[in-house]
């Protein structure tokens, strides 16, 4: 029993040890990796796919694929980065699949995909909400989501991984199967497009705030 506790502690100390043990047949060691990295992978997946339903599917699939391919990981040192990359690749596939689904639908549903979970009202900052401020916040959020959705898969991936997740250019280039320079260009194009789409509305909001008419 004492030995078991010690080995659990050892697993928690290092992803590399957990990987080794998993490869040796200790399936519970993989549980440590899943529990340790699930939140980070979910955050990436949510930002890439834009909804919780797809994000959860991406997380599960990333860890399933990670387990299946764990033999290929052995020589590497950072499991978190590795599973992140698997998730990003799968999220790109999922986004493409989702686009095909949407294109096939005759009339896209107007309702929000995530129901209450993704209800704009739940995401608006909580300070003294007036109906007007809520309306404008919802409108801004909708425009931001539309601007993000209008990016190409590569641009969205590059932006999410660089801006929100702080990944290195080489790492993003690996996911996009592209060169470093091309990846930097992709980050630039993404920010430029977002700026073109959002700057007018952001400036209008800032002016309203300055004049004390903010909502």
């Amino acid at each position, binding site marked *: 029993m004492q030995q078991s506790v010690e080995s659990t502690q050892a697993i928690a100390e290092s992803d590399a040890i957990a990987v080794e043990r998993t490869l040796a047949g200790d399936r519970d060691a993989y549980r440590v990796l899943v529990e340790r990295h699930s939140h980070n992978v979910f955050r990436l997946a949510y930002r890439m796919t834009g909804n919780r339903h797809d994000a959860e599917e991406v997380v599960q699939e990333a860890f399933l694929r990670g387990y299946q391919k764990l033999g290929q990981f052995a020589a590497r040192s950072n499991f978190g980065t590795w599973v992140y990359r698997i998730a990003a690749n799968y999220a790109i596939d999922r986004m493409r699949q989702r686009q095909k689904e949407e294109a096939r639908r005759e009339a896209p549903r107007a309702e929000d995909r995530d129901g209450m979970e993704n209800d704009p009202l739940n995401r608006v900052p909580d300070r003294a909400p007036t109906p007007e401020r809520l309306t404008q916040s919802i409108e801004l959020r909708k425009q931001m989501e539309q601007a993000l959705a209008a990016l190409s898969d590569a641009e969205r991936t590059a932006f999410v991984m660089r801006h929100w997740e702080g990944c290195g250019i080489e790492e993003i280039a690996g996911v996009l199967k592209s060169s470093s320079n091309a990846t*930097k260009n992709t980050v630039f194009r993404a920010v430029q497009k977002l700026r073109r789409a959002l700057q007018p509305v952001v400036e209008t909001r800032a002016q309203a705030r300055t004049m004390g008419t903010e909502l």
Partner: protein
Amino acid sequence: MKHMTEEELIAYREGVAEQRTAISGHLAVCEECRGELERIEAVLAALDTLTVPDPGADYGRQVWREIAPRLAEKPEPWWQVWMEPRRLAAAGVIVALIVAAFVAGRITRPGKTSDNIANKEQVRERVLVVAVGEHLGHSERMLVELSNAEPSDPAQKQVNISAEQRRAEDLLQENRLYRQTALQEGDAGLASVLDELERVLLDVAHSPEEVTPAQLEAIQKKIAGRGILFKVRVVNKELQQRQEAREPAPAQNESTKRERNKV
């Protein structure tokens, strides 16, 4: 003075600029470029307000619960993964579709290409129809039971829905498979209903095992609000009709698909 380009400023802001020191030096003395950078930052700051929902402290364990039954005892060669029961079922459906298409091709008279294609599609569709029909029936029963669940005693503070939750978990995996197959088959109407069903199943599967009467009512309202039971019934009924119809004319078949797309 030569100003910074938008590309240089964005690269600087995103930490990928090569001449970082030079840009910093320029920004220190150039108000115009500082203003431009501030405008870029204002947009990025607005984007930063898009939050990611917290999946909950228990999320890691939840992911493990979802994937653990699908993991082999030990990471195996890639083909071993397909020996797992659920994937075998998936492979079974795919094999059945291929066999059905092959048989349809063999039994159809040569020389009538359009008839051949129609027959192959009908047989392949029939296999999908039977499997999906059964799945929808199970889903409908689970949702009806959950919709009718209520505390046995008005003073009861918790209602146990663990049985429905486990069934929803099982149905969720099947649902994903059928949705993807329906998409591959080009049946957008069926895929759309399965997509909606998947979201409801996901909600139920992720609910606590024991809920308060108020939480139960919220789940029931969500099911009712999405009208998913009605949609499942309509689609299931239609699938049954398709199954009963021995040789529906292709034109009718197409119009039926179009009708369902309106659900």
